[in-house]
Structure formats: structure tokens, C-alpha cells
């Protein structure tokens, strides 16, 4: 087994009984619960729209997820994961193991990436299930067949790719800053700024925390720009982070 795979398995082992593990389902679960209650409690409003509700369900789910929950979720997850090592300065034992520093940095990066993938897919599956359940208990709500799973799944993957840059930034920040409050503070501030910038073509397209939300803007070429910026930016941040982490001293 390669050293990277071993390091990754060791990181996965550490997730047992952690809040970080349960957040994978709790964060999208909160959105799903809100969505369900919104349709369930406002049946008349949505029934009177006389249009398929899959589009509304899709847009609500991914805007709540992309604009608010995903950036905060990434912030929290990366801070919790880094906290496993910052607490009691466990770095000194981890980095005294016969493992290359790059393998530790990248395995720790893969974990939040995997978490975003699982959460986004959980959100997608849950949103579709919400529609199916809602139409069975409230037949006036118009969730017609066929179920547009391809639309939901496509946007789930786009959101995942668009979030890569903020995952890599928060991964770097949370490993660098030793306190939980400092690293989450960065994420909360950046997310609040993204609320202001998300509709700005000039600044919103450059602010990494806006990228998942900008997928919802219907303009030609915007999806391509978001994805390229996220992937290239993530690569640059990760390589810079690996270089910094490899040189870091444990005092």
C-alpha cells in the first residue's frame, strides 16, 4: 500500500466519534429540513404556482447550500480537522513519524474534499427525496415525473468543483492558525463579504467564497470561468501550502 494511501486511511481512522464526521450529514440535513418545512407549511402558496416545483426546490437547495451553508461548513470542517492536531500540539508526534510531509498535507486535504462530495451528494439525494415525499403527502404540490435527477446531480458536481478553492484556502488557514476561533473567524468574515460581492461581476467573480453561488447566475460562460478559476486556484494554493508545510518547524 502506498504511503499516501496509508496516511489517508490513518486520517480517516481519526474521524471516528468526531463532530466533523456527523457534520457531513447534519449540514445538508439542516437545509433539507428547512426545505421540507417550507413546502409543507406553505402548500397553498406553492400549489397556486401551477408549475413544476422541481425548479424551485433545485434553486432553493443549491442557493442556500452554495451561498451560506457550504462556505461555513468548509470553515468548520477544516478547523475541526486541524484542531485534532493543534490540540495538545499533536503535530510533534505526527511529524516525527516516517511519513513525508506532503503526504500528511494532501491526505488532510483530501478529507474535507471527500466530505464536501458526500455532503453535496447527500443534499442532492435528500432534495429529490423531499420532492417525492412532499408530492405523496401533499398531492396538490406539483412534482411531476420524470424526476430531474440529472439536473440536480450536475449542479451537485459543479458546486463541488466550485468549492475546491475555498476548501484549499481553509485547509491552509486552519493548519497555519493554531486556534479554532481564528480559523473559523476567517471563514465567517469571508462568507459575510461574499453576501455583498456575490452579485458583483467585477469583484464577485474574484472572491473565492462567491464561486459556488455564482454557478446560479445565468450568464453565458460563467460556469466555465468559475470552474477554471476554482481548479487552478486550488492547485496553486495547495502547492504553496505543501511547500510551506514541508518547511514548517515544530517548536
Amino acid at each position, binding site marked *: 500500500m502506498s*504511503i499516501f494511501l*496509508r*496516511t489517508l*486511511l*490513518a486520517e480517516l*481512522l*481519526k474521524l*471516528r*466519534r*468526531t463532530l466533523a464526521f456527523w457534520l457531513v450529514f447534519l449540514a445538508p440535513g439542516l437545509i433539507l429540513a428547512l426545505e421540507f418545512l417550507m413546502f409543507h407549511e406553505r402548500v397553498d402558496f406553492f400549489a397556486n404556482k401551477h408549475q413544476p416545483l422541481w425548479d424551485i426546490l433545485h434553486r432553493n437547495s443549491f442557493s442556500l447550500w452554495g451561498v451560506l451553508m457550504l462556505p461555513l461548513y468548509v470553515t468548520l470542517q477544516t478547523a475541526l480537522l486541524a484542531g*485534532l492536531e493543534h490540540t*495538545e*500540539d*499533536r503535530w*510533534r*508526534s*505526527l*511529524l*516525527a*513519524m*516516517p*511519513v*513525508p510531509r506532503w503526504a500528511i498535507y494532501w491526505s488532510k486535504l483530501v478529507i474535507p474534499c471527500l466530505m464536501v462530495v458526500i455532503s453535496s451528494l447527500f443534499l442532492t439525494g435528500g432534495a429529490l427525496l423531499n420532492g417525492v415525499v412532499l408530492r405523496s403527502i401533499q398531492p396538490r404540490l406539483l412534482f411531476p415525473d420524470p424526476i430531474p435527477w440529472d439536473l440536480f446531480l450536475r449542479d451537485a458536481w459543479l458546486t463541488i468543483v466550485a468549492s475546491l478553492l475555498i476548501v484549499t484556502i481553509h485547509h491552509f488557514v486552519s493548519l497555519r492558525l493554531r486556534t479554532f476561533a481564528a480559523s473559523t473567524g476567517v471563514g465567517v468574515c469571508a462568507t459575510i463579504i461574499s453576501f455583498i460581492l456575490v452579485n458583483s461581476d467585477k469583484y464577485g467573480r474574484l472572491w473565492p467564497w462567491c464561486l459556488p453561488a455564482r454557478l446560479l447566475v445565468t450568464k453565458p460562460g460563467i460556469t466555465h470561468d468559475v470552474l477554471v478559476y476554482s481548479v487552478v486556484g486550488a492547485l496553486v494554493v495547495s502547492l504553496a501550502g505543501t511547500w510551506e508545510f514541508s518547511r514548517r*518547524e*515544530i*517548536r
Partner: protein
Amino acid sequence: MHDMVIETSGLSRRFGDRLVVDSLSLQVPAGSVFGFLGPNGAGKTTTIRLLLGLLRTNSGTIRIFGESITTHRLPVLARIGALVEAPSLYPHLTGTENLRHACLLKRVDPKDIDRVLRIVNLSSDGGRQVKTYSLGMKQRLGLALALLGRPELIILDEPTNGLDPAGIQEMRHLLRDMPVSHGISVFLSSHLLTEVDQMASHIGIIAAGRLQFQGSPDELRARRQSSLRIGLDRPEIAAELLRQQGWPAVAREQNLVELPAMDQDSTVRINRFLVERGFGVHLISGHQPTLEEMFFDLTQPA
């Protein structure tokens, strides 16, 4: 096999303006239990972090098993088990899961977990979460982590810190037997000479970043020099007057003045000198310093 498992030469490390490790040249023989002694802040932990590649050196070299830690960090670390300060354990995992985590990183067969748990007497507690362990159990689990994969050398930073007397005794037995029963050389730091004296075959004493002594406890004992102790009032003034007469006297606590051991005539002359100047001499005796006193003298700033 190399005669020395650890060799440093002119090792120095500075934090800002402060020279924490100063031209340290250590030699740790294979098959030894090497006690690295020094008061708090002497540079022990920094030295250990340098040995493990957690810190970079400002100057000097480190060779472990004859290889440079700078150029052969991973192969060297694969042959070492380390416990740096308090054991770094994941409290939400069980003892066995902590060991499995280390097995993955050290490329060690998980079958080795039972063996190391047996060595540290934790076989029946491996399934419990570490947050339920006592401090002594955590320390023993830390030692088990260091022993995983049968390393040739274990480096332990203050391994008995926070242990109760029974725990200290247990740890002492475990470590003292390592070279013979498991073929492992041990490098351990401590600020307690009495503790190290009971288990170490070799000692290094560091103070203010500089190595003050290196050798066996017997060699340290052989350096003991007898002294003459005089009990009297106003020891500082007496010592000053004696120094003015050419006797190298030092004032000590408990109304004592200490001089190198000397012949009977000189002792009589010193006594007469002091009495004639009105000092109330109530004690004159020869003194053989204890190891503790030697350690104190070696590690006190001049």
C-alpha cells in the same frame, strides 16, 4: 551496526537572540540507556526536536545510526520510536485505535499492537477510549506507540512526568530492561538525576544549552572531590576574608563555608584565622558531595 546510535557535532540552535542549544556534541552508545539531564529550560526538548527533524539546526550535524537526519530523515525515523513531552494521543479513539493509526503511518503490521500492549501492561484496556485513561496509562500508551515496529532506538522526553511513584517505578523497570530484553537503545531526558541514575548506563548533563558532562554515572562519581565544610556565623564575610588570604572559599547555605579538602595543618590555620577574627566556628568537617550536589553545581550558572 554503528557503535553510536546518536552522534551530534557542534549542534546549535537559536530562537531569535537566544542560543538554546550551543555547540552540543553528544555521543549515545548503541545498547545504552542514555539519560539526558538538565534543569527546565536547559535545551533538552529543543535537542530532542532537532534529533527528530522537527526543528532545523543553525549549525552542526546530527547523525543517527550513522546517517544524517537532514538527508535521510524518513529512513532514520522509521527506525526510531519517539515520545516528545506528553504523549500525543487522540482521546476520542481507543488505545488500540491510536496504535492502529501509528501502525498505518509507520508501515507496521497491526499484529504488533498486542505485543506492545502486553509490554506496557495495557492489554485489558486497549478497547477503552483514551479519554478515560489515567495519566499513567496515557504515558504507558505513549511508550507503546514508541515501541511499535520494534525500533532500534526510542527517544523519550521526560517519560515519567506527571506519574505517581508507582508509575515512575513501573516506567523505570520497563526502560531499564529495554536494551537487554528488546535490543532497543534508549535516549531519555529528565531533570531528575536520582531518577536517571537508577536506570541509565550513560548520562549527559546539559545546562544553558551546553553539554557539561558526558559519560557513565560511575565516571561522574569519580569526578567527585572532597571538600572541607566550616560551620560559622556570617559565612559571606568569612568566605571573603579567606579568599583574600588565598584560600578558595565559597559561602553556602545553612551558615557554611566550603573549601577544597586540605591537610591537617591548613585546616588548623584556617580555624585559628577565623577564631582570631571573632567568628563563632561550631563545625569543621570533611564532605563528599552527592551526585545531586554535583548535578546542581554543573547546572548552575557560574
